[in-house]
């Protein structure tokens, strides 16, 4: 059982950074490899920096961590720059512009943004404004690269977002959402509730989801996700959100469970709390966990099944951790995510089509 302990070694580095100077070089080699693969190297570097232990580490390790800090510092600046461009393009709509996930953590300067690498910028808008938003973005240089008409139609008919739009010059990608789950999903939350509860960010034209919705969105996204390449990173995001937000607001835990019930998203929140607790040892008050577990109404058997899958799949997707069990777990999550996102009939047609196309594409990487 060497695999779980490799992941545990990496997690311990975040949880007890004061012990890092005593880490043997061979263990650093392992931790850096896993952290790179899990997209956690930036967060590890930031943790080491914040605890002031950088200078006590082996030189080679310092080099890699400092290099990661150069990259994450740049990305933090770059996302701010990108957000300012998006603001300029979408301001004329006069609508609330809600940033989601990484971009939201960055603009609200939250702990979850520290040392994080950013991908696409995700924006949430009222559905009626989607066409106008697309036109405004195209006017400012963004465009959809969706060459496959099937995928384009699939996005527009069934998804909760426009096809991703890439900027012609900067190459950056924006995802314009009108909900946080596909329209075909089994538990589609009312998007207007998310928008009306969002909070403005002072000094900008942007808003972010309310603290509770931010956690619920992150949880919902993670447990609908079919590929957990960034699973452990997302779990660390949740850990950072929960710690920071619960500290700011004494009634946070109570509000969080209430809100999840209102949105009909108790079960993903339940799983989020279950696995941040189990894997990252996140502090979750017992009453909050019991309350959400009660409203999520997941049977003991289905929880045992989910545990057997998720406890494996949250490991970095790295040859050191991978074995037959993690492969089965990842396949199970892939299927489950599709089951959650669309009705079975539609699912079979969609997956059938995808697997035929895949046979003729170059690699297994293009899904």
């Amino acid at each position: 059982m060497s695999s779980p302990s490799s992941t545990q070694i990496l997690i311990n580095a975040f949880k007890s950074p004061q012990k890092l100077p005593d880490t043997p070089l061979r263990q650093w080699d392992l931790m850096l490899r896993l952290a790179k693969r899990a997209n956690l190297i930036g967060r590890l570097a930031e943790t080491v920096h914040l605890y002031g232990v950088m200078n006590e580490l082996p030189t080679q390790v310092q080099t890699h961590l400092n290099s990661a800090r150069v990259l994450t510092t740049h990305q933090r600046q770059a996302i701010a720059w990108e957000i300012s461009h998006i603001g300029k393009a979408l301001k004329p709509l006069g609508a609330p512009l809600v940033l989601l996930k990484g971009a939201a953590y960055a603009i609200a300067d939250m702990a979850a943004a520290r040392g994080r690498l950013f991908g696409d910028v995700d924006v949430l808008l009222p559905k009626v404004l989607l066409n106008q938003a697309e036109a405004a973005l195209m006017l400012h240089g963004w465009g959809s690269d969706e060459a496959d008409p099937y995928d384009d139609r699939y996005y527009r008919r069934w998804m909760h977002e426009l096809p991703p739009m890439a900027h012609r010059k900067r190459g950056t990608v924006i995802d314009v959402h009108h909900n946080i789950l596909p329209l075909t999903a089994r538990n589609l939350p009312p998007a207007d509730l998310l928008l009306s509860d969002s909070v403005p960010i002072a000094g900008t034209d942007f808003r972010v989801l309310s603290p509770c919705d931010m956690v619920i969105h992150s949880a919902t996204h993670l447990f609908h996700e079919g590929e957990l390449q960034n699973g452990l990173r997302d779990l660390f995001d949740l850990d950072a959100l929960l710690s920071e937000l619960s500290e700011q607001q004494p009634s946070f835990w109570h509000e969080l469970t209430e809100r999840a019930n209102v949105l009909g998203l108790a079960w993903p929140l339940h799983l989020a709390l279950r696995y941040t607790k189990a894997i990252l040892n996140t502090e979750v008050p017992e009453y909050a966990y019991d309350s959400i577990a009660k409203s999520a109404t997941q049977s003991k058997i289905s929880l045992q099944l989910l545990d057997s899958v998720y406890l494996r799949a949250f490991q970095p997707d790295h040859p050191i951790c991978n074995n037959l069990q993690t492969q089965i777990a990842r396949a199970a999550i892939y299927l489950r995510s599709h089951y959650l996102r669309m009705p079975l009939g539609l699912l079979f047609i969609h997956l059938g089509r995808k697997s035929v196309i895949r046979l003729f594409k170059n690699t297994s990487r293009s899904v």
Partner: protein
Amino acid sequence: MSQPLCRVSELSLEALQSHLQDGSFALQTGNLISRITTNFPDVALSVHILYANHPCQISPDFSDFHVEIRQPRNLRRWFKQQSEFLIDGDAPFEPLPREQAPAFLEWGLNWAVAASCHQWFTLHAASLERNGLAVILPAPPGSGKSTLCTALALRGWRLLSDELTLINPQLITASALARPINLKNASIELIRNFEPTSAWGPETYDTAKGRVTHLRPPANSVERMLENAQPRWIVFPRYCPDSEPLLTPRTKAQTFIHFAQNAFNYSTLGETGFDVVGRLVDQCDCYDFTYSRLEDALEVFDWLSNGALP
């Protein structure tokens, strides 16, 4: 457990092959250590030839990169042989034809440095040293940069790097990688004739680039690969058939802009990147250089380096 350093040439091809297979082989280029895994005998042979003079370790405690060249695990392998490059289990590139595996390792390792080593300001340029001073040869593909770099490296200049020039952002010194030199098409015969004793990796055919192969770096360049050099000249070479050698001054502003646009991590380094390019261009004489014969070029570079002597 890890064993002390030895040279790759001290390992038999069979021993190297078995260390590559079980993933215990680690190669040192400059101050970077790359752990390499592969089952492919042609990759083992290529490493054995190209890195004969390089130090290596078996199962060291720490490596900067862990890479693998292998057969991709997809359905296509049943009707078309391919090779893929993995770094910590991730494949940053689409697979290439099987016979390009040895070159794929070289390109993959270049990419690993360019994409993740932000301890340096990294230029797409060749660099060589003489008397502690470095010349940087930035140039687009097809300008004859690698051919000129090879000729200089075989005639009194020490090769720092053929593809990636690594600049320390604090000291503005150039670090060496002393990796094999990538040569294409007509350059291959040109250099074979220029230096018949040179050692070469396997030659492959790439539809985009034509014939491609790698040249083993001179032993002296490898021995001294931990010595840094002070950049002194920036020369933009351009091969032009039948031309007389012509060295003309180039403005520092033009050179600055070229680096700002062509360095791998100019924007990633942010303000530091701007500062490095400014200081680098300030401390160097900048030239454009047109040539057709390597002998002429060597003479001009001798003249440059002698002029800098006190």
